[in-house]
C-alpha cells in the first residue's frame, strides 16, 4: 500500500482563531480513512482546504505526488478529488439527473451550446448514460426527474454522493454522509462505501460522527480536536485511546 494523499503540517487561521494547527495526515491508496473529532475541531476546514475554498497560511497538500495548493477550486475535481458537503448543499431547482450531469462536468467534452451538432449529441448522450448508471448504483433511479429540493433528507445526501461519484474521482472526501440518516439508510451507506472502496478502488476520506459506521468501514482513523491531531490509528486502537475519550467528553461542554 502506497500513500496517495498527504497533508503536511497545514495551518489555517480565520482572523484571530486558529482552525487548523500544523495538521498532518497520510492516506493509503484504496483505504477508507476516517477523520473524527468533536464539533468545531476543524474537520470540515481540512476538506475546505483540499477543495481550495480556503487557503492555509502554511503547509503542503499533495495528491498523487503533485501539490494541489496552487490549483483553483474547479481544477481539484479534474485532478481526481471529489467531495460531498456536510449541511445539505443540493442544487435545489435542478433535477436529480441534471445534478449528476453537473457532477460529470470534468468528464464531458465541451461543445458550442447554441445549436445542435454531432459532437454535442455525442457528448450529451454519453453523459446521460453515465449519469443513469450512477443513479442505478445509488438507488436514485426512481427519482431521476424529481427536483433535488423535493427529495427527502436521505435521498439528498445520496444525491450529493452520486454527484461526487460522477466525477470518477480517485479520492473521495465524504463530509458526514450518514449524518441524520435512519439505521436502514446507514446500513445502505455502509455497504455503498465498502463497494466504492473495495470494488472500484476509490480512496475515501470520511468525516463522520456516526461511530458505528466509522468503526465498521474505516481502515484508519485520525482524531482532531481544536485543530490539532490528537490520535491516529486503527479503529481498535482509537476505540481504547484515552485522549480521544477525553477530547469527546471534555469538549462535550462546548459542543
Amino acid at each position, binding site marked *: 500500500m502506497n500513500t496517495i494523499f498527504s497533508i503536511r503540517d497545514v495551518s489555517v487561521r480565520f482572523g484571530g482563531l486558529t482552525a487548523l494547527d500544523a495538521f498532518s495526515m497520510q492516506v493509503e491508496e484504496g483505504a477508507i480513512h476516517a477523520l473524527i473529532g468533536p464539533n468545531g475541531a476543524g474537520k470540515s476546514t481540512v476538506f475546505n482546504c483540499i477543495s481550495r*475554498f*480556503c487557503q492555509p497560511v502554511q503547509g503542503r497538500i499533495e495528491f498523487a505526488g503533485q501539490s494541489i495548493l496552487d490549483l483553483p*477550486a474547479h481544477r481539484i475535481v479534474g485532478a481526481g478529488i471529489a467531495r460531498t458537503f456536510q449541511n445539505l*448543499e443540493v442544487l*435545489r431547482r435542478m433535477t436529480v439527473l441534471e445534478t449528476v450531469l453537473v457532477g460529470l462536468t470534468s468528464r464531458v467534452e465541451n461543445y458550442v451550446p447554441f445549436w445542435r451538432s454531432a459532437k454535442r449529441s455525442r457528448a450529451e448522450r454519453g453523459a446521460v448514460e453515465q449519469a443513469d448508471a450512477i443513479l442505478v448504483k445509488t438507488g436514485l433511479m426512481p427519482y431521476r426527474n424529481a427536483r433535488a*429540493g423535493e427529495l427527502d433528507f436521505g435521498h439528498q445526501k445520496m444525491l450529493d454522493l452520486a454527484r461526487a461519484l460522477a466525477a470518477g474521482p480517485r479520492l473521495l472526501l465524504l463530509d458526514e454522509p450518514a449524518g441524520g440518516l435512519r439505521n436502514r439508510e446507514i446500513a445502505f451507506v455502509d455497504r455503498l462505501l465498502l463497494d466504492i472502496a473495495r470494488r472500484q478502488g476509490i480512496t475515501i476520506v470520511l468525516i463522520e460522527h456516526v461511530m458505528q459506521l466509522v468503526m465498521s468501514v474505516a481502515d484508519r482513523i485520525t482524531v482532531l480536536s481544536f485543530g490539532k491531531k490528537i490520535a491516529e490509528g486503527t479503529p481498535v486502537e482509537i476505540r481504547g485511546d484515552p485522549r480521544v475519550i477525553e477530547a469527546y467528553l471534555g469538549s462535550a461542554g462546548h459542543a
Partner: protein
Amino acid sequence: MFSLLLTQAIASGVVTGCVYALVALSLVIIYKSTDVVNFAGGELVMLGAYVGLLALTYFEVSYAVMFALAVIAVFTTGAIFERVVLGTIVGRRHSAHTELVPLVVATVGFGYLLKGLVRAVPYTEEVRRLPPLVSGPPIFIGEAILQRHDIAIIAVTVVVMAALTVFFNFTLTGKAMRATSQNGRAAALVGIPVKRMRMAAWGLASAIAGIAGILLAPKLLMTPDMGVVVMLAFAAAIIGGFTSLPGCVIGGIALGIVQNFVGILLSPQAIAVTPFFVIIVVLMLRPQGLFGEMIATKKV
C-alpha cells in the same frame, strides 16, 4: 476669491452630505440587521415628507406634532412591510444566496407602491416644500454662509448617528439585532425573537428615513420622485463600507463635497453622474469601503 469658493463649497457640501448620510444610516441599519438592501429607502423618505405635509396643510397641526405623526407613520409602514412581505419570503427561505433576489425585488416593488400611492393624491404633482426646522438669519462661518436649518441638519445627523452607534454596540436589543443578521438560526437558538427583531429594525430604519424626509423637504423640495436621493445615500453608504455608521456619515459628507468640487472644477453636468461613478470606483477598487470590514466580496 478661490478660498471663498473653497470654504463655501465645503460648507454646503457638508450640509447636503449630512442629508445623504441620514438616508444612508437608514439603509445601513436595514442591511446590518436583516441583510437586505432597501431600494425603497428613498420612497420612505418621500413618505415621511408627504405625511408631514398632509399633517401641516390638511390637519393643520403644530410642527412638533407633525414631526411625531410622520415618524410614527413611516415607522409603522416599514415594520408592516417587513412583517407582511419580507416575512413571507424569508418564511420559505432555502438558502440566503438564492433568496436575496426576491427580497431586493420586493423592496423595489414597495418603492413603486409608495410612490404610486402619493402620486394618486391630487396636487402632489406640484413641487412642494415643508417649513424649516429652525428659521432665522443665516450664519457666517468665516466667509461661508449657512442657513440655520442647515446647522440643524448637521446636528440631527450627528445625534442620530451617535445614538445608533450606542444602540448597536452597547444595548442588548441592538446587539440582538446584529446577531439576527449575522446568523438568524443561531440567534433563534439563543432565544432572540428573530422575527420581532427584524420588524423592529425595519421600523427603526424607516423612522430615520422619515426624519430625513422632514429635514430635507425644506432643503431639496418635495415631489413624489424625491426618492431618487436614495442613490446618493447608497453611494455614501458604500464609501463608508455599508456596515459602519460613522463610515456612512463621513461617506455622505465626502460625497456632498466631491459633488460641489466636480461642479466647480469639471462641469455642473457631471454632478448627476458623480455618485454612480463613485459607487463603481469604490466597489471595484476597495469593496470593503473606506471604513467597513471586508463585506462586499464573498467567500468561495
